[in-house]
């Protein structure tokens, strides 16, 4: 976007306004996190003493809650971490692969039954999952998938919301690209792999983020499937700290901080590559 000199001043003002707005939203986004971090440094009893506070009190602050997390119930926290990570990677990788194919197929081809398939995708997407728990549990037992990582990702293998997104995204892709690929002698699968996947990188990026988030926060289904405490996930573990008969803030706060920080670090490191990928993938023309 070119901007000429007359617009330069206007643009500078706009830029300040825009930056201010971003800062405002950033503060809004970070307050709960800041509270969580500050609280994680204090003993549980101190946290509620003065209500919501972001004050740092060096007298009572330490990383003791973090070291205690290592020994909490024989170090089970890191087992949850591992379990969460395995489920997240499996769910995201499998989900991205299959749903991008399906979404692409639905968007780019005309075929008999296409509307039926797409309607099914939408209906499965809109099903309230909670209501399927009982029969889904029985299905897992009969498929012998209880207490396995695969069982924990089975309902999310080909996530309908991902299919829907990829389909929508592919609608914007000029279909001439397919013809061009065919003329170059590619098979249809080759066209998808060599021509479409690079174009779809922003979509893959968005879906990776969403899938990771869904999986990382998922509590109910992994709990239903897993029968070994060491295979539980972080949200399950964090959920046990708040009960009607007493809360363990000393575990909740550092546990919740540790659940976010490494992901953010990875994200920040990966961002450069990620952004580069995004620009490379955008359609020119």
């Amino acid at each position, binding site marked *: *976007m070119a901007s000429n000199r007359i617009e330069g001043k206007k*643009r500078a003002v*706009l830029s300040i306004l*825009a*930056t201010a*707005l*971003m800062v405002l*939203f*950033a503060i809004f*986004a970070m307050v*709960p*996190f800041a*509270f*969580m971090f500050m609280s994680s440094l204090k003993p549980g009893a101190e946290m509620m003493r003065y*209500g919501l506070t972001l004050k740092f009190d060096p007298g009572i602050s330490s990383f003791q809650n973090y070291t205690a997390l290592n020994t909490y119930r024989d170090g089970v926290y890191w087992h949850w971490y591992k379990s969460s990570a395995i489920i997240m990677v499996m769910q995201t990788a499998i989900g991205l692969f*299959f749903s991008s194919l*399906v979404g692409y*197929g639905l968007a780019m081809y005309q*075929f008999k039954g296409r509307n039926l*398939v797409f309607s*099914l995708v*939408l209906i499965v*997407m*809109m099903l*309230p999952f*909670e*209501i*399927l728990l*009982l*029969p*889904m549990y029985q*299905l897992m037992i009969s498929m012998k998938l209880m207490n396995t990582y695969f069982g924990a990702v089975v*309902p999310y293998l080909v996530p309908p919301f991902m299919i829907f*997104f990829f389909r929508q*995204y592919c609608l*914007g892709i000029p*279909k*001439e690209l397919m013809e061009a690929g065919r003329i170059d002698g590619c098979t*249809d699968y080759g066209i998808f792999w060599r021509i479409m996947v690079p*174009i779809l990188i*922003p979509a893959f*990026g*968005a879906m990776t983020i*969403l899938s990771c*988030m869904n999986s990382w926060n998922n509590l109910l289904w992994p709990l239903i499937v897993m029968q070994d405490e060491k295979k539980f996930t972080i*949200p399950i573990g964090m*959920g046990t*700290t*708040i009960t009607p008969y007493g809360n363990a803030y000393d575990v*909740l706060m550092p546990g*919740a901080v540790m*659940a*976010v920080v490494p992901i953010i670090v990875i994200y*920040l490191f990966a*961002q450069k590559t990620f*952004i580069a990928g*995004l620009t490379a*993938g*955008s*359609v020119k023309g």
Partner: protein
Amino acid sequence: MQKDSVQQKPLRHRGSFLNDPRIVPYVLVAPFIIFFLVVYLYPLIMTIIMSFQKIDGPNHREFIGLKNYLKLDTRDFRLALQTSGRYAFWDLIVLTLVPLVIACILHSGLAKGSAFFKSLFFIPSLTSIIVAGIVFRLAFGTLETATMNRVMIALGQKPIKWLSYADSGNFVLILLTLWRWNGVNIVYYLSGLQSIPTDYYEAAQIDGANAIQKFTHVTLPGIRPVLIYVITITVLGGFSMFTESVALWQQNNAGGVGRTIVGYMYMVGFKKNNFGLASAVGLTLLALVVAVNLIQLVLMGFFKKED
């Protein structure tokens, strides 16, 4: 942009059945078909059957006809419908517009440090919802000394018992949802914005279009498919919201202020162990979401485009 679909002329056969252009789309969508048949078909059918049953343990299931559906005419369910409806309405407005504005600003490069903000906005979606619930509960507490009530007093307003009443409770809930999902919707929009070829903007520039014209004539049509996606899942998310309300009110839904349809379904199914009725609630919710989304999609001209 060309909107014609590719003609399904069999250009050439490579000898392989799977490469036949008439077969290719079926191969592409096969994973979902298999997935649906293996994973979702049985639970879906069972749920439909269960909605006509009274269930008391594995050996006590009897058909009771439409009784479960007739039981939906209760004060609690109506209240839940109202709560979810009110929430879904505001959710749709706030969560489609705010992230769109932010995404456009980030994409335009107007604000400094866009990359930094992108990752910041994304943090809430990974932050423990339990902790977020605690923070929001404390900030929107009942006392005059609670953070937001201090703000209200400073503004010359009366303090509010935020979470005790439907409207103010809904406001806090929307705020919590915005906090949590803003970053995710921004990512959707950004991916859509990135797919718009930059020369479209340049062409508009040459034609002398101003910022607003560029937005309505280039940006909006360009992200239309993504916009439809965001609206559809926001409607869905609005009506099936549960996690956020539990985080705010925990299990204490005084006056039913925070009990949504899924919350009601959950209470009936698990707290009262009545899976038959819960199935009926779930299927009613499905019908509702499908209906609202159909209306929305028709209004957006979703079906015109493809056929």
